[in-house]
């Protein structure tokens, strides 16, 4: 910590007793260390930022004052404080020339020294107090994020929030949480208009990115404490990490139990035993009723234990209350209803699932498969198996948006089997040749359009373009090929050709 010489002059102990005799131009020199010297011996080596406080009696007009001024100037020292003494004109001129503040004091120089040192030590004392207070407030017991945030906000007297790895608050609130650069896993300090934003990462061992960030905004007068707060944040980040680790352990244990239970259920043949029923009931899973299986596959890089909650959230967002189990590289989920769902309801469900899938794809490379409704405990295994097959297929079909519903799947599988012959492919290519090289990706549009049961709306949704664009492209396809897509034979031939060409090209 350092302050300008000017700041010391404002100390109550200094004001009125210390006079600036010369070198006023140097009053903005920074004082890092006020040091006492008992005499002016040339042996004393001046350090950078040193304010030399001479405590002994001062021989009048001593040339060593001049030599000391020079050493202070050469060492980027702060200045010289002498007991009150008559100074030579030449000495004062030299202080002016070197811009080294030359001060004299009528009060005890050691008292002035102590006052200056206390001022310089203030930030360190403040910091130590803050760290201790944070430690006392958070203790050693793991606390949930809300408690960590509230306790820290009380200690810091500033808003505090715990952010997830996307920068969104998990607990607490900040005005500008988005300013935290979550991609840089180091403590951060971001200047605000009226203060500073401080953030400290909360890492999990061996994870490449911090799972959480602890951040606070110091605005207005609070910004003065920007030097002291980071250490307190670090202590609180430790508390958040303890909670994270404990919570993670519970999650892992829970995930393993659920995964094992699901495995047992998928393997049953006929009626489940009492023990299995009990375990399912304890987990809150209903085995009776109708089940619709959902499989969400990801890559092994995705931490499916930590991000299970995200999947549940995404499904809830589209009003689907599903059981989600971490299973292999991804999740297996299902919904259970009392009555057999009607075709309309199944279609509506598929639509909502597609929306949820779209949401999940934004943050992870997920593909989704959905099974048909099946009843009873063995129905659960059946629909999950269908969903798994569909998901595997969806992963290889970007044209369906890596989403497949088994209702659409039976036909596709059939087509695939038919077209896997060497003679069909050249014929298919010849059929679609006029569309090649045309602007607007006509082959893909046509394939998607036919996959989507000639629905302009769904084709637009899958391709992510406007429905008018789709309609215009389909018109062009009909024109280029000289076909009428309302004709079922032509539709079938083209659908087969599209599938073959896309598969062969992918």
């Amino acid at each position, binding site marked *: 910590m350092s302050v300008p010489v000017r700041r010391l002059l404002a100390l109550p102990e200094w004001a009125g007793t210390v006079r600036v005799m010369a070198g006023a131009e140097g009053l903005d020199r920074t004082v890092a260390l006020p040091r006492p010297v008992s005499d002016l011996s040339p042996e004393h080596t001046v350090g950078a930022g040193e304010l030399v406080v001479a405590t002994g009696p001062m021989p009048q007009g001593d*040339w060593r004052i001049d030599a000391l001024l020079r050493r202070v100037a050469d060492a980027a020292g702060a200045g010289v404080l002498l007991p009150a003494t008559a100074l030579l004109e*030449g000495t004062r001129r030299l202080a002016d020339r*070197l811009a080294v503040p030359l001060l004299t004091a009528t009060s005890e120089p050691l008292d002035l020294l102590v006052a200056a040192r206390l001022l310089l030590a203030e930030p360190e004392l403040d910091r130590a107090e803050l760290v201790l207070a944070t430690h006392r407030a958070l203790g050693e017991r793991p606390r949930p994020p809300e408690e960590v945030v509230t306790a820290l906000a009380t200690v810091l007297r500033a808003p505090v929030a715990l952010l997830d790895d996307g920068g969104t608050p998990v607990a607490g609130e900040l005005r500008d949480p988005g300013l935290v650069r979550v991609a840089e896993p180091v403590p951060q300090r971001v200047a605000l208009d009226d203060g500073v934003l401080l953030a400290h990462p909360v890492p999990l061992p061996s994870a490449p990115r911090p799972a959480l960030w602890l951040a606070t905004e110091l605005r207005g007068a609070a910004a003065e404490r920007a030097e002291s707060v980071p250490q307190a944040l670090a202590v609180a980040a430790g508390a958040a990490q303890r909670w994270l680790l404990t919570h993670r352990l519970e999650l892992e244990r829970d995930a393993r139990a659920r995964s094992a239970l699901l495995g047992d259920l998928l393997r049953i043949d006929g009626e489940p035993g009492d023990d299995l029923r009990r375990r399912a009931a304890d987990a809150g899973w209903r085995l009776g009723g109708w089940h619709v299986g959902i499989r969400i596959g990801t890559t092994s890089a995705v931490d499916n234990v930590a991000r299970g909650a995200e999947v549940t959230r995404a499904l809830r967002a589209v009003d689907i209350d599903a059981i989600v189990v971490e299973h292999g590289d991804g999740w297996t989920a299902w919904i259970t209803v009392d009555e057999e769902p009607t075709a309309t309801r199944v279609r509506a469900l598929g639509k909502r699932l597609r929306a949820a899938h779209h949401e999940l794809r934004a943050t992870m490379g997920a593909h989704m498969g959905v099974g048909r409704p099946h009843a009873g405990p063995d129905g659960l295994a059946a629909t999950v198996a269908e969903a798994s097959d569909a998901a595997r297929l969806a992963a290889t079909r970007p044209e369906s948006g890596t989403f497949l519903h088994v209702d659409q799947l039976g036909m596709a599988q059939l087509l695939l089997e038919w077209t896997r012959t060497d003679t069909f492919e050249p014929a298919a290519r010849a059929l679609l040749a006029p569309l090649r090289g045309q602007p607007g990706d006509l082959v893909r549009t046509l394939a998607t359009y036919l996959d989507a049961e000639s629905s302009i709306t769904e084709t637009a949704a899958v391709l992510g373009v406007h429905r008018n664009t789709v309609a215009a492209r389909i018109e062009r396809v009909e024109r280029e090929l000289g076909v009428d897509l309302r004709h079922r034979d032509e539709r079938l031939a083209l659908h087969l050709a599209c599938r073959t060409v896309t598969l062969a090209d992918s």
Partner: protein
Amino acid sequence: MRIDLADVPALERGVSLLGSGGGGDTVTAAALLRRWLADAAGGAVRLTAARDLPPGTRVVPLGLVGATAVFTEKLPGGGEFRAAVAAIERWTGERADALMSIEVGGLNGVLPLAAAADLRLSYVDADLSGRGLPRLDQLSVAAAGRGLAPVALAEPGGQVLVLADGTPAEIERTVRSFLTGSGGWAVLALAPILAGDLPGCSVLGTTSGALDLGRRVLAAGESPGADRLAAATGGRVLTLGRVLEVAHRMGPGEHGRPGFGRGSVTVTDHATRSLLRLEMENEYLLALRDGEVVASTPDVLAVLDRRTCVPISTEVLRHGTEVAVLQLPAAGFWTDPRHAPALRPRAYGIDSDPVLLR
């Protein structure tokens, strides 16, 4: 080599420079020398180099001690040289064959020549200081370990004192007390030194050196530039500027006695505006430029009138004077590590290492 009337101005200028601001004003001594030269056989004094003398030649060092300012007001009666030399001859039982000066810097660079003319003795081109020195215990014989005793003093009131024994410091103290209680100044003569011993305990060639220096400075003319002045004197010009401040104060005393007066001079350099500070006692002892020590005793520090190049002594330098400050190299005797402690800054109570030209 002979020194006659025509040499007096150059000699005066040279010894004044070597006085380093001290050594006393040469005007009265030069007037006396002129009178004695007029009376002397051939109007000149013989100046002999130490090496040209037979080694057994007995050389008596002689000079004036005490308040040199009083000397100009209270002129010698005329018998002081003879009385001092006679006293030391009687005490030691040896006849003086030649004279030399105890201190080339200042009036003692001129006055012993008058004594030599008066006593019809030849004069040796050597002295015991090589410059101006404030104390007897700093003389080269003391620094070389020969001691000073015995010492004979003759003051203008007629008193003659012989100090038979004592350390150089004791003799210095006793001589000061004697002078305070008598006429303020006295002629001092030391026991004869054999010419063969001079190279080990004196500074050789100083009178001819001073004469030479004086001639070169006179030849440099009025208001020489820094380069010309440095070339003429073989020294370094520390500043050309105007005296900003002269401050006198009492220096630290010893054993309860007050010390010599201390003082500081600050000169503002015309070209760089840097501040050259001189610390002085009877001589200029230390020079700082902007707080950094740039020159010190035993080198000679001289303050010259900017225009006339006449050296200005410590007690007459005044605020506002246009000056040149000059550093001249010390005599080799004083840079010899065996002798150096006697003249380094700490010998004057100045807490600094020597900073010398070479």
